[in-house]
């Protein structure tokens, strides 16, 4: 938790202040833009959207699955929504948006993070790995293979989160026993109930050594 806090740099907070003014200004602008006479034109060129997009976003640089991205995001956008809606990386799932299910788990600088509880603007300069970034070309990550082998899923919706968490669980040293795995994977809910098979997959990767 402390580590997490230290990531927030003071200048970001200043930015939050100016952000408030921005909001006011941009809503006025939008209000003008949607006045009846201009509606048709604005709609034609998507002007309203473009103007507001320019005013309301903040630049952020991050590396996603090894690729540098220069993004313009709304400060209120979560990393999860930016991944899914802006970058079309829909492998990371939204199961609750409240930090209670683990479906949105990604790795940020190698650690598992709930992307629904992380604002995208706070990831400046960080390395984000999503489920789409695990395989090396056609070669699946050992955890992905183990999930297929042990049928560690049914509907597959919790699966990306389980896999990202499972890899982290081993790296954290929390996979020494079945009981440990179950405890440290309990933040990842699987309503289909694939738990025993997920545990088997993690155990196998742990025992076989994993490439991180």
């Amino acid at each position, binding site marked *: 938790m402390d580590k997490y806090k230290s990531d927030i740099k003071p200048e970001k907070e200043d930015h939050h202040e100016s952000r408030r003014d921005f909001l006011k200004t*941009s*809503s006025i602008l*939008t*209000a003008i833009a*949607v006045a009846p006479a201009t509606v048709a034109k604005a709609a034609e060129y998507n002007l*309203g*959207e473009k103007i*507001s997009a320019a005013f*309301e976003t903040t630049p952020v640089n991050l590396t996603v699955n090894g690729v540098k991205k220069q993004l313009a995001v*709304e400060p*209120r956008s979560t990393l999860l*929504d930016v991944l*899914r*809606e802006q970058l*079309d*990386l*829909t*492998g*990371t*799932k*939204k*199961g*609750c*948006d*409240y930090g*209670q*299910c683990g479906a949105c788990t990604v790795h940020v600088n190698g650690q598992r993070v709930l992307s629904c509880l992380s604002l995208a603007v706070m990831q400046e300069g960080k390395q984000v790995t*999503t*489920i789409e970034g695990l*395989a090396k070309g056609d070669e*699946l990550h050992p955890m*992905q293979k183990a*999930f*297929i*082998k042990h*049928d560690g*899923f*049914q*509907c*597959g*919706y*919790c699966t*990306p989160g389980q*896999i990202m968490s499972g890899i982290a669980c081993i790296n954290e040293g929390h996979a020494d026993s079945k009981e440990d*795995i*179950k405890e440290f*994977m*309990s*933040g*990842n*809910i699987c*309503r*289909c*109930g*694939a*738990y*025993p*098979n*997920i*545990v088997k997959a993690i155990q196998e990767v742990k025992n076989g050594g994993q490439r991180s």
Partner: protein
Amino acid sequence: MNEAFFDKKEYKPLDRVDGRLKVTGAAKYSAEYALPNMAYGVLVGSRIAKGTIKSIDSKAAERAPGVLAVISHLNVIKIPGYAARGVHPSEPPTGGQPLRVFYDNKVYSNDQPIAIVVATSLEKAQYGASLVKVQYDQQEHQTDFEANAKNAVIAAAAKKNPKSPTADYDRGQTDAFETAPFRIEAEYVLPTEMHNPMELQAITAHWEADDRLTIYDKVQGTKTTQKTFAKEWDVPEQNVKVIATFVGGAFGNGLHSWPHESAAIIAAKQVKRPVKVVLTREQMFTMVGYRPRTWQKIQMGAAKDGKLVAINHHSIGQTSTYEEFTETTLMQTRMMYASPNVSTRYRLLPLNVATPIWMRGPGEATGAFALESAMDEMAHAIGMDPIEFRLANYTETDPDKNMPWSTKYMRECYEEGKKRIGWENRKLKPGSVRDGEWLVGYGMGTGTFGANRGPATVKAELDLEGNLVMHCAITDIGPGTATAMVQVASNTTGIAPEKITFHLGSSEFPNAGLQGGSSTVNSVGPAVQAACNALKEQLITMAAAKSGPDFGAAKPDDIMFEKGEIQLSGKSSAKLKLSDLFKQNNIQKIEATQESKPSENGKKYSMNAFSMHFAMVHVHPFTGQVRVKKIVCCADAGTIVSPKTAESQMIGGATGGIGMALTEDAVMDHRFGRYVTKDFGDYHVPVHADVPDIDVYFVNKPDLLADPVGSKGLGEIAIIGVAPAIANAVFNATGKRVRHLPITPDKLLGL
């Protein structure tokens, strides 16, 4: 009857054919189609449970950046299908009037969608929705089940049809209970439970033309959904395309069309852009159905030798005021045991809540909790082992329908389950086994569900490389439908699974019903077989014309494909290269579309799948904490087509049963008629740490009277009987009978 399917091969468990897509994040669910110019819709829910909307102030929302529209009953366009519906048309399978979103100013339940804010981004739509201000004329609501139970009514369906499964039922003497030597009488309560699939309900609606709609929708039936929305918009069915390639769990809540779907489609029409609506987790509790709170009372009478004398089983299930939702809660009581006297009474209690919908195992799982708990109570009262007691009442025919079973192999389940759970360690006297400071208990419960089958059509194409590609409109909410169908096709044709593809989840594909009621493998499987056999017949004709009499007399069962060759069984010399045959006939591929329908056997046989679940639990005597240490699930489900995915399905059902038994409880604050449990923090579903090893046993004997694949269905029986097995184990551990689920520690304090 084609016995060959089952006998032909040793089953090599297949890995899930879509596994790679699921572990790489490439599988696309309903909210994951990026359409050009897409907008986002966020629903505004009512803050009252009953009344009317006085006014909606949407000015601030409309002025907010990026907001394209705020749509409510005040400004909604005309929806042709709304007017066409009567006040209370009885639309099977449920009566009443499905909620027409934005139809008028009436509020029927708390958080009913009353407006949708559409904006250019999700965040903007969320912010916009927060600005909508609504005034109501509130009326007094009734949401408290217990306070209103006296107002329960007989189902309209039962009034109309005395043969309806919800109608009053009497077999033998109605007063036999009164004079039985051993009598128990008990009330059981199952709280409202939420499906809560991990994927939030989502739809992306896109009007490709004024009268042509495409929806990417989280549903369990693409064809039924197509019909619903074609009717709602008065357009030809083929103009509505429903895509549900991947469904992130559903457990029943994709069996109904819900207001948020209509809202997204309306919004897309009104803003003339594709609109995506994803419910919040909180809205998953209020907008897409639930397992209804159900009160049950059982009176059971038995003789000293353990023979049942009578069972009287009453139940009251909750429904909404605008739609009559019924389920077959009491069917198991009528047919599971050989009781000469059985009476059942099913009643409904309409409250100011949203409509429930079948949740895994539906009514049978609810009914089984009461029946199988009562069986355990009676065994205890007589002083008999619960398994011996059940065996004393084993029926070789269906006592309700008075027909033989198509197949029933429950004796195998009793034997195998007993062995695997370690039943010999169970003591008759509760509270007499300990492991350290923990109390140890063993319990079991049985389940059954109809081997339901509907019509289904599959199109199969075979190319000269020997690739088999099939299409069917069926969905896969998780059990692994494509995997099972690839297995059926491979067994029918001999083609290696890697060369077979099964496409599903689109209304553009040949007809199939809903994925629900454990009916997929036994409905679609036979259609796969039929289509494959039709392909074989074409090949035989082609082969006979070219290669002489050997193939001329062949039947589909006589030939198999191996390594791109057609092989006549028993004659290793009679083979033909597929590619040669295609080339000789100057064709690239052959195709066949076949429909398979239920046979008449259902009129002569009672066809059911059966399950038996065993639980071993530890209960902490001071804290009341219950830990499920082991579960054994036994299933008599006919042919197990795909052993690996079938096992996962059983494990999943058992996990759902753990939740039902120990944690799941949707709690409502009746002052507002609104759930206080509204996310995974309050509504507890089982997590990794709650789930022990689950040992699965399949009898795996085909039921060829049920369908040509021999499958009886698995999805429901996987959960039916699990909750009572755990409750019975808790009783065996503690001597305390909990009849009101879930069994939370407070109910076990003071041991």
